[in-house]
């Protein structure tokens, strides 16, 4: 009786993948599988000519108290806490209020996200939705970083020190005001006097950084952590690579079991030579590593000397400087970096932007690493190490030919893990209800490298936009640029300024004249890897103090450097 209206292929062209479908991420060897579909079957909301997102249909007739401001319909959500599912994302007042089933309860069963007469639909069909990325090691070198960060899917930045004095912090925050990006500034702890740290928190520092270039001595570590424990703030650490005041064991003793975020533990960014990586043994030390060595590539070493000279106050004309810097390079710790990420013993990927890293690449590098380490697991070098996490579907079912767990573990390294580590997971790092609606939409073919759209606080803020005079959006030439929420006077209304609980937010608002919501990071002290979502391992590795060779249970822990990566030459012309 009824004729056929849609073939399965046409249905997918309209609504994207359905439960059970697998999706290849970009040109990687990573496949995700849609585990669940929360949309109303047969009642999927869709806007347009002859479509159903209208009055008398899946829109409710009048605005109720729970009416949404906007709803992202039908995207495949890939989220470190929610998993891989197809669902609608309801947004109100800039926050995610639910991940479930949108529509009208007069039409469909089980509606928990009512589409009202004021609700704007954002079509997510055929797209992947992830939380905006959290870069927990960026340097606020200059405004050129911001468009690059957004174009790489990063919506929250935690700076890596060097933002003091208070006058500089004020200039930086004012300069950032018009970018649709959340920001928290860590200031360097360069003093053992509480009063000197008080000044930085009052000025809006979200936490502290210790850096060997300003001193990372055991006594300073001890004092800063004691102060941090009292004030509930983050501490990030770049250790003493000279071994002038401390070696690895001394640093660990000074940390004394307290929470600290250790930067670029692979060592190429600086720190104890050559065995900084030994910090992966310590559960209270949350470890990150940075974009240039992720994944370890055949040319990674070639750029490092010049990069280090230019970033660390050295001179190409001074032989002693060059010798010091050459000694920092350890191919063998870089070789172990990927396997330790795979084990979950390094928790976070971050950029080290213009301080020896690339701000657009945290997402991309994390996904590339997931790809490289999937292959490593099938090699003799990668097989059988104790502690390697399970791969496959998140529900633990038999092999369904997907990499969901793997993708979520690596996605977590640029979203929820840094958010927890910096005390802001109530706001960012996941699409779970209550969080800011910072949502990155990706075409599957471009996953991890070129976002299709970035919603900030639920509003379109950044996207590859086209010619203004054209009859349609995104006519060539397209360039990443601001949408309305990304314009200078709109961005603050969708962006947060993270500070510490010790700051007087009202006073700060007056002083900084910011339109951002000022939010205190919290719950920072006492965190261990067990507090994190998916990268919770410690690894009892040995690092040979002569050459940095890494072994785990007597076996070499290493991956070969890669010469050809996915999410690379197919996507970028330069």
């Amino acid at each position: 009786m009824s004729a056929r209206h849609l073939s399965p292929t046409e249905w997918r062209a309209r609504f994207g993948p359905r439960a059970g479908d697998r999706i290849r991420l970009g040109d990687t060897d990573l496949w995700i599988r849609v585990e669940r579909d929360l949309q109303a079957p047969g009642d999927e909301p869709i806007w347009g000519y002859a479509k159903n997102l209208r009055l008398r249909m899946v829109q409710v007739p009048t605005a109720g108290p729970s009416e949404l401001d906007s709803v992202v319909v039908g995207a495949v959500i890939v989220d470190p806490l929610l998993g891989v599912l197809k669902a609608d994302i309801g947004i109100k007042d800039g926050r995610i209020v639910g991940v479930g089933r949108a529509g009208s309860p007069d039409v469909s069963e089980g509606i928990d996200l009512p589409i009202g007469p004021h609700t704007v639909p954002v079509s997510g069909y055929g797209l992947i939705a992830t939380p905006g990325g959290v870069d927990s090691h960026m340097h606020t070198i200059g405004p050129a970083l911001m468009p690059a960060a957004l174009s790489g899917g990063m919506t929250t930045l935690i700076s890596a020190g060097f933002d003091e004095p208070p006058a500089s912090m004020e200039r930086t925050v004012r300069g950032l005001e018009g970018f649709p990006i959340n920001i928290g500034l860590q200031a360097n702890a360069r003093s053992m006097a509480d009063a000197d740290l008080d000044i930085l928190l009052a000025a809006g520092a979200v936490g502290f950084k210790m850096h060997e270039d300003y001193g990372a001595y055991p006594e300073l570590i001890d004092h800063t952590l004691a102060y941090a424990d009292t004030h509930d703030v983050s501490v990030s650490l770049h250790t003493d690579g000279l071994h002038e005041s401390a070696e690895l064991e001394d640093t660990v003793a000074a940390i004394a079991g307290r929470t600290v975020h250790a930067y670029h533990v692979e060592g190429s960014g600086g720190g104890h030579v050559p065995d900084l990586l030994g910090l992966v043994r310590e559960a209270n030390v949350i470890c990150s590593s940075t974009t240039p060595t992720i994944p370890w590539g055949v040319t990674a070493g070639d750029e490092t000397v010049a990069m280090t000279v230019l970033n660390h106050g050295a001179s190409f004309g001074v032989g002693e400087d060059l010798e010091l810097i050459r000694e920092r390079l350890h191919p063998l710790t870089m070789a172990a970096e990927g396997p330790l990420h795979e084990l979950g013993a390094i928790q976070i990927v971050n950029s080290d932007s213009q301080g020896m890293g690339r701000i657009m690449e945290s997402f991309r590098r994390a996904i590339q690493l997931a790809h490289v380490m999937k292959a490593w697991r099938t090699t003799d070098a990668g097989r059988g190490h104790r502690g390697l996490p399970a791969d496959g579907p998140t529900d633990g079912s038999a092999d369904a030919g997907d990499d969901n767990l793997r993708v979520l573990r690596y996605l977590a390294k640029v979203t929820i893990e840094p958010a927890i580590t910096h005390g802001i997971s109530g706001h960012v790092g996941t699409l779970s209800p209550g969080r800011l609606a910072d949502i990155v939409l990706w075409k599957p073919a471009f996953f991890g490298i070129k976002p299709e759209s970035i919603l900030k606080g639920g509003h379109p803020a950044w996207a590859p936009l086209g010619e203004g005079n054209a009859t349609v959006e995104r006519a060539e030439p397209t360039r990443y640029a601001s949408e309305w929420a990304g314009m200078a006077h709109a961005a603050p209304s969708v962006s947060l300024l993270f500070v510490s609980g010790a700051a007087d937010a009202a006073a700060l608002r007056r002083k900084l004249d910011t339109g951002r919501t000022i939010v205190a990071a919290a719950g920072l002290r006492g965190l261990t890897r067990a507090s994190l979502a998916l990268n919770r391992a410690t690894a009892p590795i040995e690092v040979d103090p002569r050459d940095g060779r890494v072994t785990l249970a007597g076996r070499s822990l290493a991956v070969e450097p890669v010469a050809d990566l996915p999410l690379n030459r197919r996507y970028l012309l330069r």
Partner: protein
Amino acid sequence: MCDAMLEAARGSAPYADVEAAGLAAVAPEDVMPGVRELVDDVRVEVLFGDGPRLVVLIDPLGAGRPASIDGPGAVMPVDDGSAAVASGDGGSAAAADGDPAWMLPPATLERRSLVVENTSRRVVRISSHYPFERVNPRLVFDRAQAAGFHLDLPAGSSERWSPGDSKEVRLVRYARDGHETEGHGAKRHGAKGHGAKGHGAKGHGAKRHRAAGDRADRANHANRGGRPDEEPDT
């Protein structure tokens, strides 16, 4: 591609020739394998003699070849037994008898078939979710039978009646919670009393479909990072 189209139009080529110039500009073998899958379309406004016009090249690196089943961003359909139906993709609708059940509201919902005649002088189309008893009065059928029902079609599809057409269509009862017998009709669609009951804060089915959020909050043992209601200054 864009440059080739702009130049062709500048040289007064007609619209079809401009499209052809764009398609000829880059051969599939000029790009890396997998690049074709990245370029769904190229849209550009070129300047013709009568002003700017939009040109959209669809799958411009495809060169008529079938799309790769596992290229970048590919979707591998779940094997749900609909493959046989899928093989008819693009074929005539007459070859298949109805849409696969998974595209439609749940099978547990009541269905009704009605013969509907178009007495209009114009083509009438009715889309999937329009309350069927409220359709254009020039469609003639037993309206009482349609109260609380809509066309049993995939969301966003529609049924077409030419002038004078008469055909049997299948309706499905709205899946709304409670399956009220009250019609989904004019009186229910008065603005009054609708929202409070139907889509108040305690949404229907919240318990079932809150699954995603609940799971997150359980998993999020680290949800300590300052809840929104603890903001010091908002």
